[in-house]
């Protein structure tokens, strides 16, 4: 357990050394969301700015007034609001995919890569990351699809029971299992991405296979690390809602904006923390495996040298 904690702390040190990436991605997300919500924003201003009824949405939140607003013919259709937001959501996903090699390069390097190095790494690895994503889509799609089908079947069966809470518990249990399995897959492909970046691996299938081995051999500590960070993300959600509800008056628009954005930054940070944890794990593993691999692998050595292992503090143990 101590080792797991150390892994998490190692990840935390990495992510705090490179906080800037979180900030920039948050800023990007905020900017894209501004574009994505522009249509809704305009409609809101058109309907609310000159109406006294709008006060019932400012002082508290009158659900009836809100529903009346969206029921007006002038409000338009739901897709009119949702589709632009969806486009910008996809755009954020693509940009994240593009930036992630640079981030992982930084997480596995000593010091901070220059901007040129960052984007060079991003560019070099973009197509590889797309292929990793395809592998991930196949694996997660098949396993997730099967699990969700089982989930639906089990919940459906439980609904026939006269015990009213059985469907709820079935939902809870099956979704918990699905979450754990998908988290394992996520760990696997996070490690594969690190492998691609660190080894400058063109044949991403090799990275996927190697990462599978790492994940299989160290499943418990990796899953525990990811799980603990997920629990912290949930705590951020609960804490954020509590602060929002308890300390931010309903009419304080700026206060609500700050609280929500802090929550989003922290959530983003949690995901980067997971990645940093995976990077820390990988580097330790690579350090341990490097001599063996050098003799065992008949293929020519990669063009780049093996990564520099980030310095670990004295109290951090290797996970082997």
């Amino acid at each position, binding site marked *: 357990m101590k080792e797991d904690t150390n892994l998490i702390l190692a990840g935390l040190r990495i992510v705090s050394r490179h906080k800037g990436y979180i900030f920039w991605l948050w800023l990007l997300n905020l900017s894209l969301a501004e574009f994505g919500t522009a249509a809704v924003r305009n409609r809101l201003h058109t309907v609310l700015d000159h109406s006294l009824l*709008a006060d019932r949405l400012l002082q508290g939140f009158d659900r009836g007034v809100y529903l009346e607003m969206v029921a007006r013919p002038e409000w338009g259709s739901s897709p009119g609001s949702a589709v632009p937001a969806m486009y910008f959501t996809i755009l954020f996903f693509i940009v994240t995919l593009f930036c992630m090699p640079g981030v992982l390069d930084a997480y596995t390097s000593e010091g901070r890569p220059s901007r040129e190095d960052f984007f060079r790494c991003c560019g070099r690895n973009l197509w590889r990351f797309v292929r990793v994503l395809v592998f991930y889509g196949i694996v997660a799609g098949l396993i997730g699809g099967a699990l969700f089908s089982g989930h639906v079947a089990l919940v459906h069966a439980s609904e026939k029971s006269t015990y009213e809470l059985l469907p709820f518990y079935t939902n809870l249990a099956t979704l918990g299992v699905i979450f754990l399995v*998908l988290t394992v897959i996520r760990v696997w492909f996070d490690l594969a991405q690190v492998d691609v970046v660190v080894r400058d691996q063109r044949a991403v299938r090799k990275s996927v296979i190697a990462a599978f081995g790492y994940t299989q051999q160290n499943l418990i500590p990796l899953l525990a690390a990811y799980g603990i960070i997920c629990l912290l993300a949930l705590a951020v959600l609960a804490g954020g809602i509590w602060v929002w*509800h308890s300390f931010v008056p309903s009419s304080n628009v700026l206060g609500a904006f700050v609280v929500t954005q802090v929550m989003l930054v922290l959530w983003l940070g949690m995901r980067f923390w997971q990645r940093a944890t995976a990077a820390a794990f990988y580097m330790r593993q690579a350090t341990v495996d490097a001599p063996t691999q050098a003799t065992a692998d008949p293929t020519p050595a990669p063009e780049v040298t093996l990564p520099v292992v980030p310095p670990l503090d004295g109290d951090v143990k290797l996970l082997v």
Partner: protein
Amino acid sequence: MSLCKTLTLLLVTTLAPLVAVAQIAEAEAANPAVVAPLIPDTTVAINSSAPLSQRVVAYDIDANYDAVKHTLDGTELLTYHNLTGQPLDRFPFHLYLNAFQPKATWVREAKAMGSRDTSYEEWEEKDRGSDEIKSFEVVGMGDLTSKLEFIQPDDGNKDDKTVVRVIVPKAVAPGDYVQFKIKFHDQLPETQARSGWNRDFVLGGQWFPKVGVWWHGAWNCHQYHATTEFFADFGVYDVSLTLPQNEVVGASGVRVKEAKNFDGTQTLTYHGDDIHDFAWTASPRYRVAEDTFQGAMGTVQLRLMMQPAHWNQEQRHARILKESLDQFERWYGPYPYKTLTLVDPEPDSAAFGMEYPTFITGGTSWWMPALIHEPELVVEHEFGHQYWYGMVATNEFEDAWMDEGINSYTEVKVMDSIFGPDTSIRNLFGATYGEREDQRLFYIGAADLDPMARNAWQYANSHSYEGVTYGKTACVLLTLEKIVGEDTMRNALHTYFMRYRFTHPTKEDVLKTIEEISGRDLRWYFNQAVYGTQVFDYEVMQISSDPVNWYEKDLKEKKGETLYESRVLLHRKGDFTFPVEVEIRFDNGERVREQWDGQDRWVKFNYQKKAKIESAEIDPDHTIYLDRDNFNNSRTMEPNKAPARKLANYWSFVVQSLSQFLAWWLV
């Protein structure tokens, strides 16, 4: 007296009664109504020493429920008192359960227009319901089973078997009685339209052949439609139900007898007075709580039949039931029955939220937080039906708004009085929702499709039926408070209830009562709101303030010194005309209220003041609920961007969260 004379006298006195009996028997055969039994004037189930209604029918039913097959086999002895003032030679009967068949009108309409409970994506055999008459005898006229014919008075759908008619060989004279002996077999569907089974739960609603109502000189016996409910005469019900001993049973009326049978079944007998329907429920898993309410006419036994997982909400249900009883008794009139059964039906069944005489179903979930009052809303609503459907007993086929709509209005009043006007449905994490807004939302979704005064099955669709019947009626009556006053409205409904309970009033009865109590001619309003489809929409179209000396080149505006020419333009966007009030606020704190009769398309108010207009608002006291757009009822000179920014922030937060969630799992 000679022996011969004595013997003759003896013979005559002995034979005379025999002859008389024979003559009566012959007369009976000729006219069976002569000696038919009277409908009993029992008061077992009511807190009254005399009957409360003119009892037209008496149902005596014995039924066996097969909990495995979900079938009922019953015999029904129906006594009908001909109070129509004319001979009757034909009698229509409702067979409501036949609605749940693929070609029946109910299913056709539900598939085409939607229904509250069922979408009919595909037909499943468990959806099928039926009410089959095995034999039909008219006492004194013999077996008329072969004379039964299905009729379709509303739509001519020959596949609809929800109304059956018999023409009797000899007409029943005015004032006479006739008895029908009916054997029937029911197949209950998996719950549909608040009737049927679900898992091991069953709700027996509309489960036996029911005679139509002679109303305004004709039989009123409509087919069962997806948007209609029911209409029946008052009378006495004696019902014996035989079902497995493990079943916990609740029903309309008072339980008068119970017996355990050797075959593992139990027979429970119920009696109801002055009711027009009988429903029952059974499940092995009910947990039952008993309570009492001291009503104006006597004690009411409350029976709450809860799902095991909802037992912790028993007090919530008891509380709202008693508070509803209390408010209705104080505002509208006494509850005269000795019992009231509240059923918490099987979760996810189509049995929630239904009313039958002295018997209602609620609807909740195991997780329901106390600050969401939806279970209370359902209970209050269904209880309210005890007055408008149960006792006033309007024709729900033709005047649905007189039950559902008036009930929605009283629901607003009662829920507001208990939980507060803006929080009567929900008050959770700062998000509030009130009953008035709920009814308004119902209404504005279908404001102009149908008038309230329309047969329930003739609405454009179920959405319009619900929006107009429930929501619009509530809004019409809430807006009427603005014209006649809240106390007058309450008094009018009290008078209406007391005057028309246990009768079957028409729409004009309630409208005339409101006019009578308010002392005002309200035809102009009723013609638009009740009989019309006019759209109510007034708006503040424009406000402006300009300096009177605007043309001066070096004009410097000074607050409190510069004279302004201000204008307010009001616009009637809809075709509903209504007198409105507008409040104009100036930046020196002054408020001016103007009246407009609302007849013309627009009106303009001009002012010259040393102050600029800040805002103008139509209906500043917020008493008009019929206006379909409340956002354009006011206009401010300066924009207040904070509300839009707040909501945009919420929306942006959702979009950002989704973006991050997607990236979290995929990248």
